């Protein structure tokens, strides 16, 4: 196979899933900058190992590489530092919404909801966060999620169930704080 046809096939089957890759990486790393690094490295690997991709689902194949890239290089270095940072960001948002004008109340309420949902999701343990992100935000099937993570379908289901419960708890907890 020549490099040209390889590039073309790669552009047709893997490159279109860039948004999926970035969204997953962004939710795993919780940082734009790190997400870009993870995605870039994942694409490097994906191109390198593209010969091993024998058709099928280009998106799950790419997402599995994104996930592995994150777990291999990035997780340890960043897992501690982020949660506190996130809380600080949220306080200033709360001040803004507290003083919001009446006409803007609905828009603010909606932004407030979005902020609370994002915050709850960011605080979730990573193994639940990733299944929820793939299921709810990227509409992956249980089979696809199982393939990305390398776990049985039954485990996908139980993680989603526990994840939703945890999410409800975090959301309620954040609601009390606000």
């Amino acid at each position, binding site marked *: 196979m020549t490099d*040209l046809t390889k590039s073309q096939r790669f552009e047709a089957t893997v490159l279109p899933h860039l948004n999926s890759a970035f969204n997953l990486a962004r939710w795993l790393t919780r940082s734009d900058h790190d997400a870009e690094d993870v*995605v870039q490295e994942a694409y490097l690997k994906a191109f*390198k190992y593209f010969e091993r991709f024998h058709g099928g689902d280009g998106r799950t194949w790419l997402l599995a590489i994104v996930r592995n890239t994150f777990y291999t290089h990035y997780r340890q270095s960043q897992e501690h530092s982020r949660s506190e940072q996130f809380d600080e960001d949220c306080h200033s948002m709360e001040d803004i919404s507290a003083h919001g004008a009446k006409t803007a109340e609905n828009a603010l309420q909606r932004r407030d909801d979005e902020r609370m949902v994002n915050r709850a999701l960011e605080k979730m343990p990573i193994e639940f966060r990733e299944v929820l992100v793939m299921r709810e935000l990227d509409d992956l099937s249980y089979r696809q999620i199982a393939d990305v993570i390398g776990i049985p*379908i039954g485990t996908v289901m139980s993680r989603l169930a526990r994840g*939703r419960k945890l*999410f409800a708890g975090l959301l309620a907890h954040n609601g009390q704080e606000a």
Partner: protein
Amino acid sequence: MDCKKVAELLPAYIDQELGVGELMGIDEHLQNCPDCRREHAAQRDLGAQIKARASYFTAPPHLEARLRASLPKSNAAAPRRWTMQWRAPWLHTGIAMACALVAAWSLGLYVMQPSAQERLAEEIVSDHVRSLQVDHLSDVASTDQHTVKPWFNGKLDFAPPVVDLATQGFPLVGGRLDYLDGHAVAALVYHVRQHPINLYVWPASSHDVASTQTRNGYHLMHWTAQGMNFWAISDCAASDVERFAQGLRVAVNEPT
């Protein structure tokens, strides 16, 4: 269908992942059970809330441009030139760590051919992942080493040492026949805190020094003992894999 079964299947029901039979069973139950109906509504709304309100982060345009620019454009683009093309944007971002990573990549990928050991490690990672994906960890599911060991009789031309390490936190849960590197091998399955460990065993032709490595997030450990190759792999902590290997080495040398 009873409430317990409904509770178990509810996530899959909400996600439309059930077969018609189960689907109808739950439909019928929900019509008659207010408790399960409430639970169903609560779970469904949570999922819907994430779908509707959580941010979907799309890739910034400059990232796509950078990725496209990095792909080789002609047949003349040899792998070495390709890594140079990749390296430029990384240097540009000025992240020392990222550059070191890419340098490591180009070294690992283009200067050295993967050794037989590396190819084997790669094969073990894919086998491990496959064994989890198809939910087919064990052909013989048993926590009793005296059931698992004889199961291999007649299936392999060697007798793998089978020991239980439950007392050290690594219960044996089963075994299966597998193929690695062109050989039939024994795959023994252990657990550590709900994480599966695959242990591959087959006769060794040489004596290898124990080594550990991490690949795709999985921790691998390899050693030889009593004329056998041992490869352990798991997604649990690296220290767990090492403790497991240590416990196993002791147990194999002192069979009960």
